[in-house]
C-alpha cells in the first residue's frame, strides 16, 4: 500500500556528530500531499535540521523519514527523493550558479539527464510560474533579492518536485521581496498543488499555512491551524516567539474588554472585525 502522506517522520531522532545532545527527539509527523505546513521555533530548536532530513541531506540517527514511499535511509533512492522534495535556502546569492537566469533554472534538470527539448520547456514553465518569464536572458546579479529568490524557486520547480521545502527564504529580503516570495509560495501550493514546508521567523508568513508546527529544543511542542496556534499569545511569547501585530492587538483589546475575536490573523480580518464595533 502506498503511504498516504507525502512526507512521514517516524520516531525520528537526530544527533550531530560533534554534539552530545540530540538535535531532534521523537519526531512523529505526517505531511499530507498538497498540504502547506509552516514550522516556527526559536533559533537552534531543530527546524532546519528537520528540513534537511526531509530531502535526505541528513539521515536520521534513529527512526525513519519516508518521502512518497521512499525511505531516506536507502541510498539508492536518494535522487528520487531529492527530485520529489526540493529545497530553497535563505541566501539567494549562495544558490545561484549560472550567469544567466534561464541557465540557472536549467541546472537541476540538466543534472537529472533530461533531454534538452524537455529542459527548455520546463525552464519556460518554471519562470512563468514565478512570474519572471521576461527575465530569462538577464544576469541574476542584476535582479532584486525577491527576484533572485524566485529564480532559486524556479530552479527547484524545473525538477518537477511534489514538495518544496523553504528554509527561511525571506530572511534577507526587503518587504516587497518578502511578499513576492510568499505570494509565489502560496500560488505553488494552491494552483500547482505542491506540498509546501515553510520554515520562517516571520509570523505573518506562517499564518498563510494550513497547519503550523512549533518546535522547541528538538521537539514539536505545538501543532494546529494558524488561528489555533496564534491565539495562544502568551504561550508563544514564552517560547521566544511572537504573533502578527494585528493578532497582538486583538489580544490586547480583548484584555480591555473590547469584544473582538481572539484568533485574528490578518489586516483584512481585523478591519472586518473592528468595522462591526465602530
Amino acid at each position: 500500500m502506498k503511504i498516504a502522506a507525502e512526507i512521514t517522520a517516524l520516531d525520528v531522532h537526530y544527533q550531530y556528530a560533534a554534539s552530545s545532545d540530540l538535535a531532534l527527539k521523537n519526531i512523529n509527523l505526517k505531511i499530507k500531499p498538497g498540504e502547506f505546513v509552516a514550522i516556527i521555533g526559536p533559533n537552534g530548536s531543530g527546524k532546519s535540521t528537520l528540513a534537511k532530513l526531509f530531502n535526505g541531506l541528513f539521515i536520521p540517527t534513529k527512526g525513519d523519514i519516508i518521502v512518497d514511499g521512499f525511505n531516506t535511509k536507502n541510498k539508492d533512492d536518494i535522487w528520487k527523493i531529492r527530485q520529489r522534495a526540493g529545497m530553497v535556502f535563505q541566501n539567494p546569492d549562495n544558490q545561484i550558479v549560472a550567469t544567466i537566469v534561464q541557465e540557472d533554472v536549467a541546472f537541476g534538470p540538466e543534472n537529472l539527464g533530461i533531454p534538452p527539448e524537455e529542459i527548455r520547456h520546463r525552464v519556460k514553465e518554471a519562470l512563468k510560474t514565478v512570474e519572471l518569464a521576461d527575465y530569462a536572458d538577464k544576469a541574476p546579479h542584476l535582479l532584486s533579492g525577491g527576484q533572485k529568490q524566485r529564480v532559486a524557486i524556479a530552479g527547484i520547480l524545473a525538477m518537477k518536485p511534489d514538495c518544496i521545502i523553504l528554509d527561511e527564504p525571506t530572511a534577507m529580503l526587503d518587504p516587497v521581496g518578502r511578499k513576492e516570495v510568499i505570494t509565489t509560495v502560496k500560488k505553488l501550493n494552491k494552483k500547482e498543488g505542491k506540498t509546501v514546508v515553510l520554515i520562517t521567523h516571520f509570523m505573518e508568513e506562517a499564518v498563510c499555512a494550513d497547519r503550523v508546527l512549533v518546535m522547541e529544543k528538538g521537539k514539536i511542542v505545538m501543532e494546529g491551524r494558524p488561528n489555533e496556534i496564534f491565539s495562544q499569545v502568551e504561550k508563544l511569547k514564552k517560547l521566544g516567539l511572537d504573533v502578527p501585530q494585528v493578532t497582538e492587538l486583538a489580544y490586547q483589546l480583548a484584555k480591555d474588554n473590547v469584544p473582538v475575536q481572539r484568533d485574528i490573523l490578518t489586516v483584512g480580518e481585523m478591519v472586518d472585525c473592528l468595522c462591526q464595533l465602530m
Partner: protein
Amino acid sequence: MSIDVKNVTHVYMPNTPFESIAIKDINWTVKDGEFWGLIGHTGSGKSTLIQHLNGLLKPTSGEIFINGKNIHSKGVKLKSIRQRVGLVFQYPEHQLFEETIEQDVAFGPKNIGLTEEEIAGRVKEALELVGLSYEKVKDKSPFELSGGQMRRVAIAGVLAMKPEILILDEPTAGLDPRGRDEILEEIVALKQKQKLTVILVSHSMEDVAKLVDKLAVMYHGRIVSQGTPREIFQDYAGLVEKGLGIPQITELMIKMKSKGKNVSSDILTVDEARAEIIKAVRRKGLA
C-alpha cells in the same frame, strides 16, 4: 558625534564594462546623539553608503565629514575614524575567528596598542553591555554559542573599541523574535548609556517604527526621503513602489480610516493602535 555626507557618489569599477553607480548625490546629516533608521530595497545602496561613514570606501566624488572634519583630508588617520565609528556588518558572527570569546572581543583593542589591563577591562565591559556574562563566556569558543549569542559577541567586538557612532547593518536578520527583541533592546540601552549616535539599517518596518527618531529612505542609490517614522510611513503606496512597506499595524489603521472610521492613521505601534481603537469604540458607545 555628527556625520555630514555631502554630494557623495560612489561608482564601482569605474571605466570598465562593469562600471555601476552604487550611490548617487547623497546628502545626509546625522546629528550627535540621533537614532537613525536607514531603509531601502535590496541593492539600493545602504551597505555601500554606510561603508563610507568610517572610511572603508572612499567617495568617487563628494565628501564625508565626521564632527566637521573631512575624513579624507590630510592629517586625518582613518584608523582613528574607524575606532570612533563602529560598523557592525550583516551576519557579523561570520567574522568571529578566535579560539575563545575573550580573544575575539580583544582583537580590536589589541590592535590599537592598549595595555593588557585596559584590554581586559574593555572586553569585560563590552560583553556585559551586550548582555553576556564575562566570567561565564570568556573561555568558551564563540562557535559553541547560539546564533543570537554569536551575534552579540561580534557586536561586543565593535563596542570594545569604544565607538561614538554605532552603525548596524541588519543586526536582527535571521534571528528568532526573542533574539531580535533582545538585541534591539540592548541597542536602545547602549545608546542611552554610552550616549551613542546610532544608525540602524533594517528591512523590518515594525522595528524601525518602534525605535528610531528619524528615517532615511534609499531607492536605486539615492536618498529619496528623510523624516520621522510618522511622516515616512504615511506614504504607503510610495514605499511599496520602492520595495518597502509599512508596519502591519499602520496598514490596519490606514485601512480603517479609508473605510470612513473616525481613527487616526498616524500610528506606529500596537500600543498606540490599542489606545486609538478603545477611544473610537467608547465614542461609538456614547453616541
